[in-house]
């Protein structure tokens, strides 16, 4: 896991996130957020998480941007300009303290890329060794998601269905 490819990607990630925050117009901010999702998908593909990179590229850079832009189309352009106010001191100081606390705990995490970390040695060797013989599915992520842990996926489907229903109830009651 060389750092020479990953460090420029991480710097680009932080730069695009900063760009999405600093820009004054909301439409440009939303489109820069789409490019932030693309860079995030690249970082995940580099780390070996191809399924996650696929979903993030399609959902984050595709669907989320479409939702934002369709909402912005119904809003008067006067209301999309951002007002700048001086930052509150309490928020800045407390968030900096929180950041220092998180960084202080960084040494206790397992080293990046360690095969003997507790996350990789408890349950996941069972899935890696047995999923091909049990389910005839080479893609281990799909086998875990749809077979070993199918109940979680069922509940997630319920959440998605409820979200579609709620959007309908919120916005279409007056149109009929």
């Amino acid at each position, binding site marked *: 896991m060389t750092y020479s490819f990953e460090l420029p990607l991480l710097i680009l990630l932080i730069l695009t*996130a900063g760009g999405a*925050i600093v820009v004054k117009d909301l439409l440009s901010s939303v489109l820069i957020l789409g490019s932030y999702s693309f860079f995030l998908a690249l970082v995940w593909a580099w780390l070996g*998480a191809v399924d996650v990179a696929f979903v993030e590229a399609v959902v984050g850079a595709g669907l989320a941007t479409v939702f934002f832009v369709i909402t912005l189309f119904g809003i008067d352009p006067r209301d999309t300009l951002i007002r700048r106010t001086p930052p509150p001191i309490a928020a800045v100081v407390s968030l900096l303290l929180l950041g220092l606390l998180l*960084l202080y705990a960084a040494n206790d*995490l397992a080293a990046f890329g360690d*095969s003997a970390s507790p996350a990789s040695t408890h349950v996941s060797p069972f899935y890696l060794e047995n999923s091909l013989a049990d389910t005839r599915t080479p893609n281990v992520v799909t086998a875990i998601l749809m077979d070993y842990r199918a109940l979680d996926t069922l509940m997630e489907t319920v*959440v998605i269905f409820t979200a579609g229903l709620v959007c309908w109830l919120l916005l279409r009651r007056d149109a009929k």
Partner: protein
Amino acid sequence: MVELVQGWLLRPNFIAFVILFLWGLYITVTHHNLLKKLIGLYLVQTSVIFFLVTTSAKDGATVPILMSGETAIQPDAYVNPLPHVLTLTAIVVQVATLGVSLALVAGIYRKYGSLDEDEVLKKLK
């Protein structure tokens, strides 16, 4: 102190996660525009998912798609697949809740005519 800084330099992903998380949280808490708060919330959610995925990386390992025809499968040769499963669910639920929060913002705009938090609060009184 020196080991702390050395620990930070060995984990660039964690430093990126901390920066994105705190910046997104600051935007969510302090900005007045409702849509800008949603953008900050999106940054917080994706940074946490980024942290979950980096705990699954392994040195010299490949994607978790098994090549059939092998007799013995070494778990060390494949990236840990469990955090990928959790993050897949999290990403799709994130976009569904983004749709709901955008519907709420659209309803507020239709009723009060403004996206600014202070003006909406004034009109509520």
